């Protein structure tokens, strides 16, 4: 039995509530204990309000946008490739994005251009992996994962090379990209990320109905009136854009794009018109919560967020792989 697709609005409401709850926790947790009463008291709300506005709120917003982008990209790729193991990290898109952004920084490009450079890197990686994984005109599951492994190894080498050549400051930045971190959140960075995420997200949501047909098969989509080449290009581009933007501001954070769509699919069915927006909300919630956990666990220090998601994600991925027929 497969679960009947839960009503779309109810599913979205549950995921939105999770995001709001995670955001409240994220605003509260941290090295400095907040004085909430001071915030509501007239007069001297200054310190707490400043802390919230300049540090906590941008961090929560960044985590939410990055988590939403990665989960949405993962969900769309899984349907497009008819492959439940597709994920921007596993198939090498994130690695390409990190290398792209690192090259831009090494060349002295403005941080405003980082998302563009990361997008370009994500695109190069996506295309290379897709070409490697093609066999007899179709994308092969095992070849796709192997190709992602090759791409990840290659882009790690690029990052390590830049790491060695670069100055101390560059090296710190490289480390940030390789491990994933939300520590550099500022209102400005969130403002730059937002349009990229919205554009990529809107493009994917517009394809939700067609992705339902892809989830049964590419031939199925073609026979039911979808221009499959156009759909594949658009979805690949939009997923690369979302991944690139997320990596430019938070580094490589793995497994969000794998875990979140799986959890949402198990709970609410595989109708992409529900799954895509619900995954975006739940992905935002997961990363905000994981970030709060990483700050709370070692306060006043913090665990790298990429380490947290990988520690949870790798065993779940192994379990999914074992369940594959």
């Amino acid at each position: 039995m497969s679960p009947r697709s839960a009503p779309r609005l109810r599913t979205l409401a549950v995921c939105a509530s999770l995001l709001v709850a995670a955001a409240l926790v994220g605003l509260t947790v941290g090295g400095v204990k907040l004085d909430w009463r001071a915030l509501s008291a007239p007069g001297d709300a200054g310190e707490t309000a400043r802390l919230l506005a300049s540090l906590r709120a941008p961090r929560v917003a960044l985590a939410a946008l990055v988590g939403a982008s990665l989960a949405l990209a993962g969900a769309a790729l899984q349907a497009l490739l008819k492959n439940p193991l597709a994920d921007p990290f596993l198939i090498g898109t994130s690695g390409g994005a990190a290398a792209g952004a690192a090259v831009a920084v090494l060349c002295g490009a403005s941080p405003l251009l980082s998302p563009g450079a990361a997008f370009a890197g994500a695109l190069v990686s996506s295309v290379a992996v897709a070409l490697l994984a093609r066999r007899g005109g179709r994308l092969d599951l095992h070849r796709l994962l192997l190709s992602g492994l090759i791409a990840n190894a290659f882009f790690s080498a690029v990052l390590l090379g830049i790491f060695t050549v670069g100055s101390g400051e560059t090296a710190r930045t490289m480390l940030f990209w390789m491990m994933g971190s939300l520590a550099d959140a500022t209102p400005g960075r969130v403002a730059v990320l937002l349009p990229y995420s919205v554009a990529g997200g809107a493009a994917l949501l517009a394809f939700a109905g067609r992705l339902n047909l892809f989830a049964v098969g590419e031939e199925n989509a073609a026979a039911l009136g979808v221009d499959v080449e156009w759909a594949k290009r658009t979805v690949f581009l939009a997923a690369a854009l979302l991944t690139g933007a997320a990596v430019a501001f938070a580094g490589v954070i793995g497994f969000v794009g794998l875990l979140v769509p799986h959890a949402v699919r198990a709970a609410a069915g595989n109708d992409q018109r529900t799954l895509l927006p619900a995954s975006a909300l739940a992905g935002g919630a997961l990363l905000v919560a994981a970030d709060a956990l990483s700050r709370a666990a070692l306060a006043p220090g913090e665990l790298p967020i990429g380490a947290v998601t990988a520690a949870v994600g790798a065993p779940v991925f192994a379990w999914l792989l074992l369940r594959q027929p």
Partner: protein
Amino acid sequence: MSVPAIAASGLSAAYGTTRALDGLDTSVEAGRILVLLGENGSGKSTFLKLVARILEPTAGQLALEGRSLSELPRRETARRIAYVPQSVDLVFPIRCEDLVLQGRAPYGRAFSSDSPEDRRRARDAMAACDVAELSERDASALSGGEKRRVFLARALAQEASIWLLDEPTSGLDPRHRLQFLELLQRVHRERGTTVVFVTHDIDLASELADEVLLLSRGRALAQGPPAAALTPGLLEAAFGARFEARAGALRAVSTLPAGPQDRTPKL
């Protein structure tokens, strides 16, 4: 003569460097049943996939009611042509009713929910194909025969005037085979559906077809009414086996060392 529902001229297709169709000329009149026969790899399924716009021809023309297929909007052709594949490997769980509702995709908008009208048509189609009781079941866990009938229900919900069926009866038990054929003939009679049907079952071809198209190595070997196309000589050329009439039906009785014939005795 009226404009044919489907007309192909010089139609060619290839998978990479492997040629699958090599200048095929054929046509089907509206409301007729055309059965495609030929050995494995002779281009039968490729022809269906070209008509369904799953593959693009490498050369030649394909016309739908006189209009070039490649110039028609894809959604419009999907409203007029339903394709039932030989088998589908389902990776994700999907309820049978949702699978049948996909037949309504060429009518809907990108992000809209399925309308009550779509749901009603899907339910009616499932009832007609005797799969109403499967509607909540996961299609990826069905038997081959059940899956086939669910896909047939989907073609019905699609309300297409042309059905392309790739070996629709293979793997069906006698009862469901008969049931499928009765359903097909009923739809064909009531709606005047044009049917293009791939099979290896020569008895079925002679029973069902208005016309038979014998394919060999991507070309038309012969096309005509069953009585004219299903002769021992032509079957021998198509399949590379000797045929004899036994108990009123043609049976392959021995294979020929040379395999199917390359060039053709035309009708």
